[in-house]
């Protein structure tokens, strides 16, 4: 039974470290307001600024040109930086880009790579701590919205979401609804109802969908555990990003991952089981300080 907790509330009798909890005398306490499920050991903070981690996909706005490249506004307390080295095409201020966090320096500069300009569409923002709820286990939630609205949707870990397609407004409303009701059960059903689709229709639409664009297919995998929660942390990494057929030419996407050439798949790709898109299968022990990865 999930319950709302406030700063100082005891969560677990063992230490789990992350930005939304604190440890005292080997016990874990909530540091922010959030929903806590004692049985599953999952904690979802309601709000929280985006804390960058290497490998995150983020969406940002090009703000300024610097000598070394570009400053990118990620709507986070920390700025994104994009080196112009190796970029084939320049960006301009106010361009919206999707990029990947390649490095987080000790002073919290967020170095980005593999930028892609997003044209058209619209941007909405949600709390970064709700991002994996929007994506859902094995992208289930996101697929519902995409299939029902026939929109392209890209989700940045920093809470920015890009939507483009015939029913942008509906998709935006659906995602905002997920953001608001993230803590309530039965959300997938309610979203399907809101969008006026049934599970069968969703499956059918998804199967029918034309080949998903490479960047979309590569980027919508929500494998990573919600940032605030413990309940298993996937190390993420680059699952199937470059390996999906003809690549759109958006300029250099930075250092290439060495996956070699892989055959394209037609069906929506399932994340390997247990990579924990929402981490429900994974016990809390796996969440450790080391998950911070980038060395902070």
């Amino acid at each position: 039974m999930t319950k709302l907790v406030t700063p100082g509330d005891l969560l677990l009798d063992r230490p789990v470290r992350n930005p939304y909890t604190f440890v005292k005398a080997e016990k874990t306490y909530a540091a922010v307001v959030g929903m806590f499920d004692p049985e599953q050991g999952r904690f979802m903070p309601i709000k929280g600024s985006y804390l960058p981690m290497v490998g995150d996909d983020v969406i940002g706005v090009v703000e300024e040109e610097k000598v070394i490249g570009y400053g990118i506004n990620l709507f986070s307390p920390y700025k994104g930086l994009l080196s112009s080295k190796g970029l084939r095409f320049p960006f301009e201020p106010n361009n919206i880009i999707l990029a990947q966090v390649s490095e987080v320096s000790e002073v919290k500069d967020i170095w980005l790579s593999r930028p892609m300009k997003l044209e058209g569409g619209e941007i909405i923002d949600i709390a970064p701590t709700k991002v994996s709820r929007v994506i859902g286990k094995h992208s289930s939630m996101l697929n519902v919205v995409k299939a029902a609205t026939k929109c392209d949707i890209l989700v940045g870990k920093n809470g920015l979401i890009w939507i483009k397609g015939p029913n942008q407004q509906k998709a935006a409303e659906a995602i905002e609804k997920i953001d608001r009701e993230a803590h309530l059960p039965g959300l997938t059903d309610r979203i399907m109802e809101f969008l006026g689709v049934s599970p069968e229709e969703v499956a059918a639409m998804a199967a029918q969908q034309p080949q998903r664009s490479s960047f979309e297919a590569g980027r919508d995998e929500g494998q990573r555990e919600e940032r605030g929660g413990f309940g298993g942390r996937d190390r993420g990494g680059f699952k199937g990003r470059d390996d999906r057929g003809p690549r759109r030419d958006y300029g250099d996407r930075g250092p290439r991952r060495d996956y070699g050439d892989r055959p394209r798949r037609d069906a929506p790709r399932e994340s390997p089981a247990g990579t924990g898109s929402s981490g429900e299968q994974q016990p809390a022990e796996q969440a450790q300080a080391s998950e911070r990865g980038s060395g902070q």
Partner: protein
Amino acid sequence: MGTPSEQPLIVGGKRLDGRAMDELRPITITAGVLNRANGSAYLTWGRNKVMAAVYGPKEVFPKHETDPYKAVVRCRYLMAPFSTDDHGRSGPNRRSREISMVIKEAFANVVVAEVYPKTAIEVYIEILESHGSTRVAGLTAAAVALANAGIPMRDLPIGVSIGKIDGQVAVDMQKEEDNFGQADMPLAIKPTTGEIVLLQMDGKMTRSEFEQALDMAYAKVDEIHELQVAALKEYFDRAAVMPQEE
């Protein structure tokens, strides 16, 4: 402290507003009342009206005040010019700057500043209507605003004042008691540990009256803390149910 009052502050065992010595004025707290701020809370405490808002974590200005290892917590407490009987001047004065500092230090104790290095967390407390013990009312509201903004904290500190009126120790000084009483002691306490993060006093109290005052303050901690928690929960339900206005 004030001049001795011409009128007694305790009549028939009750205070001017009918309260018992260990009774708080009625308190209401509503979280998330402002649209733009990252977190906010509106609090009424007796006839006090307080608005608290939080921005952050955000970039630090001026840049040289940035701490590379943690967020800097800032606080500005201000009384609106229309908040008191006599028109007050706009802007900070020595009293409001001192109060801003002691409240900031209380929050610097509980905010987990290491989570957001190189940022600032700004707390704004505006007293819209002032009727005694505004700094503890402001601190209580600001704690809710910080939690509403998702700022990580180890606790939700509560504020409460104790005083001495007509020779008796009493909790929660309202304006007349503040002005004409014999001692005034604002405090902030952390509910989970019982530690004191804000303490000021002036007036005349014996050692045993002081200890009694501390005990009376501690007796009120849970009551005030529960109101803070309820406000955060109520916001959550409200925000989840109602669609956001564009």
